[in-house]
């Protein structure tokens, strides 16, 4: 498509979209108004019935937990797909890590200082999902990215040792399976899939909200391991694997893959 055609398409499509968007948004309650039909109901259920201080967590892990289960498995599936795509090609091999391009001592120091801090923050955010903003997903990502400060500090080998892919795969699977298992336990005990069957405890206590903290923990495990696996796939491709000059596998495969390119 040429530049001119794209411009024509934009000039036609943009006003049409603007009109439709305006019509669609006209029925919404006014921004910043006092009228929140869904919010009021969700807050009522979260605070009165389920004693979950963080209403967002109550919505995500209790009132519509099955949506979160779906999201969890979307992440699970896409990480598996990405790892399959990033697997070493036949003509690629490990050439050993290229020398770290001069990590500044201050960067190294900051990496080592921030590593325990960010791991602690990640664990805190996961554990307090039922009380304050955050939860399994956010905490899991903080935990996983914090882990990569080991790489920023210039120690790729240390990162690989600290997070072996096999262990991460097991943690990811166990976390995802634990979410489904809590759902099934709800079906057996409470009569509905993912029903909040645990005692909800006292409002604003660390252990409150019934199954919400349990599900947050499961999601935290799965997400942290999934992001570590995802980034390790990218890191391996970028740092370790190179197209080898002499193929290590039989040349027919290499020849065929070259034809395809």
């Amino acid at each position, binding site marked *: 498509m040429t530049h001119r055609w794209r411009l024509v398409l934009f000039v036609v499509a943009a006003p049409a979209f603007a009109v439709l968007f305006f019509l669609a948004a006209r029925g919404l309650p006014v921004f*910043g108004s006092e009228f929140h039909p869904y919010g009021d109901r969700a807050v009522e259920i979260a605070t009165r019935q389920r004693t979950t201080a*963080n209403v*967002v*967590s109550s919505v995500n892990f209790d009132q519509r937990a099955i949506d979160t289960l779906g999201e969890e498995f979307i992440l699970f599936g896409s990480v598996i797909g990405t790892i399959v795509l990033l697997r070493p090609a036949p003509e690629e091999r490990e050439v050993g890590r290229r020398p770290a391009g001069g990590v500044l001592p201050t960067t190294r120091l900051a990496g080592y200082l921030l590593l325990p801090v960010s791991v602690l923050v990640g664990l805190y*955010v996961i554990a307090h999902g039922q009380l304050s*903003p*955050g*939860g399994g*997903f*956010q905490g899991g*990502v*903080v935990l*996983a*990215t914090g882990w*990569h400060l080991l790489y920023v500090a210039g120690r790729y080998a240390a990162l690989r040792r600290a997070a072996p892919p096999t262990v991460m795969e097991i943690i990811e699977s166990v976390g995802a399976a634990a979410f489904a298992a809590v759902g099934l336990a709800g079906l057996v005990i409470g009569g509905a899939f993912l029903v909040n069957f645990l005692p909800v405890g006292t409002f604003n206590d660390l252990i409150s909200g019934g199954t919400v903290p349990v599900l947050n923990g499961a999601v935290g495990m799965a997400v942290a391991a999934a*992001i570590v696996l*995802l*980034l390790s796939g*990218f*890191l391996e*491709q*970028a*740092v370790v694997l190179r197209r080898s000059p002499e193929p290590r596998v039989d040349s027919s495969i290499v020849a065929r893959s070259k034809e395809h390119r």
Partner: protein
Amino acid sequence: MMLLILLALGLVAVTGTIVVLTREPACQAVTLSVFGLTLSILFMTMQAPDVALSQLAIGTAVVPLMIMLTIQKIGGPR
């Protein structure tokens, strides 16, 4: 409060435009990271700290890192 929201919205518009106008992919990863930061400020002003936290972790850290590693692998723009 409304002023803060408008200010954050303006920042998002400016940084978003800068991301689109950045042509070099490696620089774009950095501007994308800044765009993600302004987006999480917007979510914060709109009283959605949960979403702001997700945006901060994914949009300013993981996605730019994945882009940078991909550029490193394929050797930059052809």
